[in-house]
């Protein structure tokens, strides 16, 4: 089936025409890579937040920091692997492994009485571990299977660079929108503070 859909497992050459099935497989891989890049880079910026979540999940204080860094590394490696070798074994195993880890963390969150902050996409979100991570497992597995089945094992360097560029744009564009919204809000706060000063002095 895999061979029928994506041809054989030979690396995609620079000159070959990409069919709709392969395009879909590569799009799925690109989207999955963007999600993992977002999560991994946000966790890399504030690894302490991820370590804190791991401690709440029962990981010992000694191992929480290394485990957090390992999780970040795995997320980023799998993301880059999806961009360079979308149908490769590392990408497939990595996505399934991460999806399973997230689902197990969600399961632990459901079984605990207290709410465990997720920190899945960095410290700026209030999500908690629970059913969302469990429900996402089929999506992770589905994405891994689709990329494995329809995307080529490896793609040419030029296309991999283009994929990295597209993934970068995918994660950076919404973030710039968030930044602008926060800027406008902060500007409003600053104006309000300026106007409050006379009141506070009196």
């Amino acid at each position, binding site marked *: 089936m895999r061979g029928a859909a994506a041809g054989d497992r030979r690396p995609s050459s620079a000159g070959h025409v990409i069919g709709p099935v392969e395009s879909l497989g590569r799009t799925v891989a690109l989207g999955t890579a963007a999600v993992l*890049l*977002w999560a991994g*880079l*946000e966790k*890399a*910026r504030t690894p302490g937040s991820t370590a804190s979540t791991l401690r709440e999940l029962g990981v010992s204080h000694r191992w929480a920091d290394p485990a957090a860094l390992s999780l970040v590394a795995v997320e980023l490696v799998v993301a880059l692997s999806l961009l360079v070798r979308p149908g490769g074994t590392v990408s497939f195993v990595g996505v399934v492994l991460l999806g399973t880890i997230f689902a197990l963390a969600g399961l632990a969150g459901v079984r605990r009485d207290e709410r465990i902050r997720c920190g899945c996409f*960095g*410290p*700026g979100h209030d999500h908690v571990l629970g059913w969302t991570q469990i429900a996402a497992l089929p999506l992770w597995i589905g994405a891994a299977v689709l990329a494995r089945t329809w995307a080529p094992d490896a793609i040419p*360097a*030029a296309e*991999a*660079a*283009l*994929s*990295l*560029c*597209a*993934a*970068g*744009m995918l*994660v*950076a564009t919404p*973030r*710039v929108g*968030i*930044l602008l919204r*926060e*800027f406008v*809000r*902060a500007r*409003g*706060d600053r*104006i*309000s*503070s300026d*106007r*409050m*000063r*006379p*009141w*506070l002095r009196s």
Partner: protein
Amino acid sequence: MVAFLTAAVGGLALLLFVLSGAVVELYRDVRQLREVAGILDRPLDVDLGEVENARPSRFGLPEALDSAASAIVLFLSARCGTCHALASGLEGRLPNRLWVILEARSPDAAAEFLESYDLIPGSTDGRLLVDAGERIAKSIGLDTTPVGFRVVNGRITSATTVPSLRYLTSIIPEPVSLNPRTSPPQPERRAS
């Protein structure tokens, strides 16, 4: 070369993502600090005393307010800095249910203030009044500006200082009305 540059653009986009995330977090930290310091939109309640539940026209305010379901009467002064900021933020027009009373020492000072912020009494449905000589403010006993008086069902119910345009926007009443989906029943016609 093209592949390298493309990858570099992707790398820079990811760097932008990380750095903008840090800036977003910084903005949120500053907001937390401002909230803790209590310097964001902190209004102060004004003790109304005998003015509470009185009809607005008793103090020289427009009689139309006596029949208003809900309104805010904002007192501005030509001498107060926050009042200038509020007037500037109105951008030459008054939101519905907002009445503005401008306190000024003289008609000239009032005209200069209104002209500065494109506020024209004729284009505000009579909801902009100039209180030259501060006659209305004195009859209410008001010596602070900017202050907003809430009028509900033709009575003055409460008053608060108005520290910012954002706060002013938040206190202007927005009535919620029913939106019946069915037409009202028609009266039956009787055969004569």
